[in-house]
């Protein structure tokens, strides 16, 4: 991992160029150009707000329907960042086969730049969340210092998976077909729509949620952006009262969610370690096979 960091520093200009190119290429040719970077999450936010707070009039035990919409969006932003990167990233070695066959550069930086792109997109999404929460709920984020840490940890987690999948995909191309299905499954196994008693999940799902790293990182984001101390109190009371055991967050208001951070950091580094090891092992064949 230290070697990876060193490579990133050495080829930082390439990393920046690739990231910028990706961000530019995505919106190139569209009339609104880079505004889509902001417009897209904004539109999503609007849709979720209208659908869940106005049309379905969803009720949660805490907060208003708009709280529900925002909490859901707050889970959706990191999920989209994660899912998109895994899907596109699992193909990244093959996709850049042309470069790999022609230039001697460390292929390790391909997953890094893909993750950077998603982190930038996510950051914009979270900015929307913060603004919307301020507007609709009248409070700002708390423990904002946790946000960059959470974002980077999530990046490392995603990157680990991308390393693993992108390297194997070179030899077993079927992965490309399988990833979208797996991601849909993972989506439903993550607490994006469910986070409070109102949607208390069955026991099996609760177990799955407990072992799903995304559960932890999503609740951290929600603690930062969504819940007020009173709402946290209410949630905790609900859980202790035998409600949903996965209704994270479970931290005392004002306390730092060290447990969640720790669990997720552990997952992220393990994932990165395994992914990178596999990637390095398979890398010598990339120029021959990609």
């Amino acid at each position, binding site marked *: 991992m230290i070697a990876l960091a060193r490579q990133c520093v050495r080829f930082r200009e390439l990393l920046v160029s*690739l990231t910028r190119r990706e961000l530019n290429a995505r919106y190139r040719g569209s009339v609104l150009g880079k505004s889509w970077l902001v417009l897209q999450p904004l539109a999503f936010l609007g849709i979720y707000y209208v659908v869940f707070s106005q049309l379905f009039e969803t009720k949660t035990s805490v907060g208003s329907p708009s709280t529900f919409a925002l909490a859901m969006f707050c889970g959706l932003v990191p999920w989209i960042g994660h899912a998109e990167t895994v899907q596109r990233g699992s193909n990244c070695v093959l996709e850049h086969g042309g470069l790999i066959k022609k230039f001697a550069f460390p292929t390790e930086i391909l997953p890094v730049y893909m993750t950077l792109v998603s982190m930038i997109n996510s950051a914009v999404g979270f900015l929307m969340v913060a603004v919307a929460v301020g507007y609709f709920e009248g409070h700002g984020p708390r423990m904002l210092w946790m946000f960059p840490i959470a974002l980077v940890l999530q990046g490392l987690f995603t990157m680990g998976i991308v390393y693993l999948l992108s390297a194997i995909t070179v030899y*077993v191309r079927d992965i490309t077909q399988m990833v979208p299905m797996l991601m849909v499954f993972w989506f439903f196994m993550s607490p994006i729509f469910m986070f409070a008693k109102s949607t208390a999940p069955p026991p099996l799902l609760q177990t799955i949620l407990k072992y799903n790293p995304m559960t932890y990182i999503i609740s951290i984001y929600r603690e930062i952006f969504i819940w007020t101390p009173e709402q946290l109190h209410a949630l905790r009371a609900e859980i202790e009262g035998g409600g949903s055991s996965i209704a994270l967050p479970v931290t005392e208001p004002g306390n730092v969610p060290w447990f969640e951070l720790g669990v997720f950091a552990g997952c992220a580094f393990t994932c990165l370690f395994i992914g990178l090891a596999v990637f390095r092992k398979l890398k010598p064949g990339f120029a021959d096979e990609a």
Partner: protein
Amino acid sequence: MKPDDRIAVRAEGLGKRYKIYSDSSGRLVEFFSFGQAKRHTEKWAVQDVSFELPRGSALGVVGANGAGKSSLLKLVTGVAVPTTGRVEINGRLSSLLELGAGFHPEFSGRDNVFMNAALMGVSKAEVRDRFDDIAAFADLGDAMDQPVRIYSSGMSMRLGFAVAMVADPDILVLDEVLAVGDHAFQQKCIERLNEIQQSGTTILFVSHAISQVRRICDRCLWIHGGRVVMAGDSTSVTDEYSNYFHARAVGRAARLAATGHAVSATAAHLTNVKLCPAGKTEEVDSFRSGDHVDFHLGFRNPTGEGKFHLGLIVNRSDEVQVFTSRSLDAGMSYEGEGGYAVVRVPLRVSGGEFYVSGFLLDESCDHILDQRQAWARFRVDHDGDDLGVFLAETEWITSQGAS
């Protein structure tokens, strides 16, 4: 830095083996059988190639398609990992392995220059410093700020070449990239290559154009089937290489003549060619400047109907056309079921390797009925030190002063 700083590239026993799986499940079967099952065939693309490139030298690599030239370059540039042997590189290496590699079609030439340079590990600041120089060399004008997607292949080549230059490499590796582009730009590239070589850059150059190899490289490797067939100074290696090609072409022609040319079983066709000293019949392939030579051009016309003409073109091995001749222009024509046309030629050429191509033409000389490119090859030796194609036999009339 390595102890021997005068060597820019050293390859020792380089080999590259590819595993070829007939279907993609074979790899999985092998993986899960832990070496018990074998589902692939092996192919050595490069085998046992060793060479040393001193700083400032230029090595050409020639060989037929699929001989392993590009695989070798991939090993040298570090893109692919060798199966055996090792490569030692002293200095910054930049490569142009394919036209437009790493160019993103949606971005401007300018953006792509920076991107490509970054892929070669060249810093932005360096590119910025040299950008004007690059732009001037590529000479793309306004197109530099237009997306690469609208570039012609010649323009891509200009840009790619300019980028490879920017890296200010100690070692420059070029694969077949001078093949496109207009003549003037090719000349410019060759001059530039000669220039940077003078200033100490080491060049590794793969090309099918033998004349380019000769102009750029002092030494040359001929590769066939992944192995080095011949290594040495570029003139002698490329000579041997083109001889080999010619021999193959002649072999094919002879085979066709023997088996009775598939297309021309009933149509008129050329059969064989023979070069003899004037008036003699034994075949010779080496002459002296000024010799008279009889070109015997064999033809056959199974139906025996119609009249036709014969023609020949003689080229020097660097593709310079030396002369042409047609029976039509001499007022001759041929008929009957076959035979030989004999053309007597005084070889007023200075030394070199030459080849003759033959043509069978219809009565009006408008249609080619059959042709043989590089039908026969011959050598002309010349004692004098004068250069050029034409044996001029000049006279110097005055010795001192003016007229």
